[in-house]
């Protein structure tokens, strides 16, 4: 049975049919990529998984539970973590604190009034956060302010923050958008490494074909709000419908 199940999702913005009867199923433990040209509805689709948008019709279930109509923080508590197109981190805080916060959220839930207990005494949280930084090779930057990190490191930190919560499902929204080729390759390596160590189910939204073909086990191609092809990477590359979607009508 598939882990993330999207059935008949529709979303209209005024006159624009952003998502048109989208069906998608993501198998547990795999990397599933969603690709498509600009404006295909990739981000809209992602936003329906995380509580930001409610589709006009259709269902989104994760591990048997509906994700519709609940708030972003509740979705995270279910085990869905999200990496943003531009890294969303706590830029004024230290790198270590950035990882401590998701560890706290994982342990204490969405709210806990523990204003008088000292953070420095909570060895479990600190150890977990430090270990996470070692895992992503950032332990030497632990005391730096997050805003002073390079773009690649910010992305790395954001992934570390998501991974520190041991999510069941990781959503990545264009993880290499706007990156130089070297940074892109680093990110691919990081993702491959994570996949090897922790078999977390991932949904990657991408633009960059290069990233997708080296990572994903399955690819869905989205065009004009509709899934036109869903197949293994090797079958996607030469697919005429994909060529048409990306390059315009074939002559």
């Amino acid at each position, binding site marked *: 049975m598939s882990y993330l199940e999207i059935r008949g999702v529709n979303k209209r913005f005024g006159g624009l049919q952003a998502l048109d009867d989208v069906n998608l199923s993501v198998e547990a433990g795999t990397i599933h990529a969603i690709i498509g040209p600009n404006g295909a509805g990739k981000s809209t689709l992602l936003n329906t998984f*995380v509580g930001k948008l409610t589709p006009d019709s259709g269902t989104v279930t994760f591990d048997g539970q509906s994700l519709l109509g609940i*708030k*972003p*923080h509740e979705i*995270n*508590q279910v085990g869905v*973590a*999200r990496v*943003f197109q531009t890294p*969303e*981190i*706590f*830029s*004024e*805080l*230290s790198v*270590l*604190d950035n990882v*401590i*916060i*998701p560890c*706290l*959220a*994982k342990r*204490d*839930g*969405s*709210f*806990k*009034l*523990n*204003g*008088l*207990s*000292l*953070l*420095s005494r*909570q060895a479990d*949280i600190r150890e977990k956060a430090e270990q996470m930084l070692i895992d992503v090779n950032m332990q030497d930057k632990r*005391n730096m302010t997050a805003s002073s990190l390079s773009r690649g490191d910010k992305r790395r930190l954001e992934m570390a*923050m998501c991974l520190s*919560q041991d999510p069941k499902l990781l959503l990545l929204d264009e993880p290499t958008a706007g990156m130089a080729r070297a940074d892109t390759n680093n990110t691919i390596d990081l993702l491959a490494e994570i996949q090897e160590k922790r078999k977390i189910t991932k949904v990657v939204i991408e633009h960059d074909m290069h990233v997708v073909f080296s990572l994903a086990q399955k690819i869905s191609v989205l065009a004009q709000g509709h899934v036109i092809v869903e197949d293994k990477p090797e079958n996607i590359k030469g697919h005429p419908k994909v060529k048409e979607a990306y390059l315009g009508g074939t002559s």
Partner: protein
Amino acid sequence: MKHLTKNDRLLFIFFTIMVLAGPIILAPFGAGYPDLLQRFAIFGLFAVGFNILFGMTGYLSFGHAAFLGVGSYSAVWMFKLLTMNVIPALFLSVVISGLFALLIGFVSLRRSGIYFSILTLAFAQMSYNLAYSVLTPITNGETGLQLNLSDPRILDAANTTGSIPSTNLFGLTMNSTAKFELLGLVFQFNVGFYFCALILIAGFYIAMRIARSPFGLMLLAIKTNQTRLNYTGVNTRPYTLAAFVISGMYAGLAGGLMAITDPLAGAERMQWTASGEVVLMTILGGVGTLLGPVLGAGFIKYFENIFSKINDSVLESWFSFLPEGLSDAMVFVLHFFVGKGWHLTLGLLFMLVVIFLPGGLMEGGTRLYNAFRSKDTKSSKDEPKAAE
């Protein structure tokens, strides 16, 4: 780093000593008398509490004076109805202002940024106007709530002295003062001040613990990136509401202390200027730092005291050495900056600080410290002083 360290302990010990030695340290500066010292402690507490909301979560409330006023009214009612002992009065101040903050915070925190500020301002002005008009049976309107000989005071023994009793802590009256003269200076040790000082120290300690707790880290995270925090599984609303209520309770406590040192409560305490003052104090001292708000409060109250005392005749005596026309001109110009016009001076000082020291007095202190450090050790790159 936001974890309690040796530095924090040192800071707390230093703070305690400075506050307790206040009457000695400030006597040479003409600020060693009880009335002013009490104001330092009370407004210091108010600012420390305000900083938990503004400094940590970044939500700028323009209505905190409402809680100050509510705290004062509650305390005076306790004096009227129950007893002149200060403990029940403070207890009621904190509880009522906390409930009031819960109500206002619940509504205001639905918005953030400037809309939040405007909502809090609106609520505070509403409270102020209500206290002036409709709520006169509770607040005694324009006259302000005062003690009366005929008040019931159920727990106190029958009053036979014929005068209004003074506030006390189990018999220790708040306005009793011990005076010592040494080297031509008068040192005054006042019970009311020490009571306020101990509460300030306790309030400072709690603020410090909050800043170093998981809860405090969440508040800082709210200030930095609420989107990320939501997608990290944290519900930000209860955190901001808790911070709002805590800072409201601090304000109520400060209001209660005001009533203790001077048992009357007036609506003007809730006016927006009073809310603005605590914002100035916090920014002037250093937003988000522990010590900053207390410094800012002391700074503003001290200079208010000095500048507002200077009147035209004092100015004339200063410039009497100048030729007639010139001294008149000087007095004419400076007249606007002193006495009742002291807010003009405060405004200028505030502008200077915001432009040249955006981190407030604490940043100034850190810069001085670093300048000295680098001179001493010749090493240019030092860790900034533990100003958090």
